[in-house]
């Protein structure tokens, strides 16, 4: 569950107290501040107290289940957890322990000489009232190839070359990955 620690001296840029709420005003503010109209601009116009987590904020995640090119299938979903709180000016805006979901974009078992393949993507972290969409997850795994060995064996015995397998790739539960927020998110203060 998301909890926010309010602290003294929070910059005005983070806590917004203006009151009014039309779409055109959101656009005007967005133009004036040179940002696209998004949830943060809307929240500011509505005068909500809270914090803006900008797009492309770096997050550190861990997988909650083990994944393997031997057993995972393209399209499988897996759990992720935020391992390091995201703070803005000393205030925790995305607490450690937030859970979410990732997806196996591509999985292939090892073959004759070539290692297994896993392409994983982080999809989102769950907030109490919404989601933080994620992108750019950096766990891209490839098992060790044995191509040279396979060709050498094939030179001696053609069938033997086909029997030389590359290594599978195994990602244990708790594997650490980096990702980024895909879009800005407004987190209401409590």
């Amino acid at each position, binding site marked *: 569950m998301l909890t926010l620690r309010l602290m003294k001296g929070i910059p005005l840029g983070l806590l917004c107290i203006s009151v009014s709420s039309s779409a055109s005003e959101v656009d005007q503010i967005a133009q004036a501040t040179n940002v696209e109209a998004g949830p943060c601009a809307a929240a500011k116009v509505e005068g909500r107290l809270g914090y803006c987590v900008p797009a492309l904020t770096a997050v550190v995640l861990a997988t909650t289940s083990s994944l393997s090119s031997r057993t995972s299938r393209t399209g499988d979903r897996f759990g992720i957890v935020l391992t390091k709180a995201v703070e803005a000016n000393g205030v925790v805006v995305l607490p450690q322990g937030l859970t979410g979901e990732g997806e196996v974009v591509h999985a292939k078992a090892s073959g004759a000489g070539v290692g297994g393949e896993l392409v994983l993507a982080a999809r989102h972290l769950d907030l109490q009232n919404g989601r933080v969409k994620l992108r750019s997850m950096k766990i891209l795994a490839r098992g060790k190839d044995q191509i040279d060995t*396979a060709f050498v064996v094939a030179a001696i015995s053609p069938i033997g070359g086909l029997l030389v397998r590359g290594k599978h790739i195994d990602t244990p539960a708790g594997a650490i990955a980096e990702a980024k927020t895909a879009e800005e998110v407004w987190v209401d203060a409590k």
Partner: protein
Amino acid sequence: MTKFMIIALATALSVFSSIGAEAQTAKKNELKVNTIQLPTPPKGKGQIVFFRGSGGGVIVGCSVNENGQKVSSLGDNKYFVMITDPGRHEFAVKSEAKDVLAIEVEPDETQFVECRIKMGIVIGRPDLAPATEENFRKKRTLKMVDAEDMGPGLGALRPEDVQAALSASAISR
């Protein structure tokens, strides 16, 4: 006095030789990676660098296709750069058997895909695998695919497009 001079000479020699060895190691490390300049993708677009090292079935082709349309051939020791829309993409290579790799292209980012030639029954089979920039840089002698080997569509950047993109990113810096 003579003893002292011998010790001093030996020390100086060992220092010089270690400096020489360090310089040689640095030079070796420098040569271990390629220094190919890659353009940055246009804003909001993604970029994929496909590459293939040398060895493992030189005569086997690796023709990269997407949605049944050729993006580019990838010969031995070659690479090409593709600009595309963000999202999921599936690329295929085909010889005796078809191999498909799905990757997720992110806006404003560059991804890498390697074509390897694995063992086949009659002939080697091309295989696409996710890769990293480190994998790409380790292939020291890569050259860009010739324009005539690229597909008819907009997929792979022609050498002149890469040059223009590099100039544009140099100006914007």
